[in-house]
């Protein structure tokens, strides 16, 4: 019965083809360092899921941002868990993505034909750091406020167009409600969309080229 149901679906969805082409790929000799990309992907999905749940209660307004997070932590069942996973997952994701990059560099996996995978990966690293930067402001506590003050001030030190960049980031000359709102928009819509798109390209390239062998002494 199940077999017939599966065959019916397979004929229409091509499940076996998907499995053969996407998952049943030849891999080099197993190595834990090769799992960091998958770990990053898992963390992205985890951050996405917990982030979506946080928006159920979070309010990106200077009046209520802090209070709404207090409410998540103390008023809502398991709010501390959802936010805790999002909080620690964020740090872990930056760390894992960075170690992933180091591994690719050390094993020289960025060489032909995988240069584009590396370049897309740089985009992924920068976007991930952008997620960290924008998410850091959202609790709207003293640390978040001053970290963003400093961070946007650094961006503003660019020669000639620094002031423009500062105003564009803050939505005006000062850190305000506009800053919080646009950081929120970037954090939940723009950057995740960019991240998802880049991950799609990154995964396509990995499936196309397969994973690289670890270099041996002869290499």
């Amino acid at each position: 019965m199940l077999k017939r149901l599966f065959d019916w679906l397979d004929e229409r969805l091509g499940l076996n083809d998907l499995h053969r082409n996407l998952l049943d790929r030849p891999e080099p000799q197993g190595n834990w360092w090769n799992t960091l990309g998958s770990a990053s992907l898992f963390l992205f999905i985890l951050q996405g899921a917990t982030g979506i749940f946080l928006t159920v209660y979070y309010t990106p307004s200077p009046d209520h941002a802090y209070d709404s997070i207090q409410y998540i932590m103390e008023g809502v069942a398991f709010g501390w868990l959802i936010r805790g996973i999002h909080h620690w997952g964020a740090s872990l994701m930056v760390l894992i993505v960075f170690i992933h990059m180091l591994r690719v560099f050390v094993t020289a996996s960025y060489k032909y034909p995988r240069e584009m995978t590396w370049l897309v990966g740089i985009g992924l690293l920068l976007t991930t750091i952008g997620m960290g930067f924008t998410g850091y402001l959202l609790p709207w506590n003293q640390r978040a406020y001053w970290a963003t003050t400093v961070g946007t001030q650094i961006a503003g030190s660019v020669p000639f167009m620094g002031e423009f960049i500062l105003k564009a980031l803050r939505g005006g000359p000062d850190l305000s409600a506009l800053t919080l709102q646009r950081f929120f928009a970037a954090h939940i819509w723009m950057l995740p969309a960019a991240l998802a798109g880049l991950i799609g390209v990154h995964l396509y390239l990995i499936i196309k080229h397969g994973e690289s062998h670890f270099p041996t002494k002869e290499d």
Partner: protein
Amino acid sequence: MSEPINRRDFIKGTAAVIGGLITAVIGLPTIAYLIDPALKESAEEAWIPVGRLEDMPVGRPAPFSFTRVQVNGWERTATSHGGFVLRRSDDPADLLILNSRCTHLACTVNWSENDQVYLCPCHDASFSRDGEVIDGPPPRPLDRFTEFRVTEDGVLEIFYQEG
């Protein structure tokens, strides 16, 4: 003894069990997190002063209103409530106190002196002086505040219970 389990099946089995555990540990709290506000009980009750009894005419519904403030999440929300006191005779205990919240979809009804009925502006419902449904979609008569008392200074108070 049955055939020993092979390596591949063991890995599959443990992966399924661990995956299931992780899903349960993350999934169940998430459901609780989402439905949490629906599970909270808000059992508030209070005696609400609605006015001096001597100011209320006999035989004609006298409107009153009051506001309750609740803390919902991180915000204080003020909700308006209202009703009518009908003195059926000079006896200070002979009162009929109706809630002006229409029993259909919670609009506020008004007393029409011309037609001698309560009219709901939303769906044209009408209720009699006693709160019984005369016309329209409401499923039951207007709710009553059955517990009330008159203080020593002659102020009428009603007993209000949330929910």
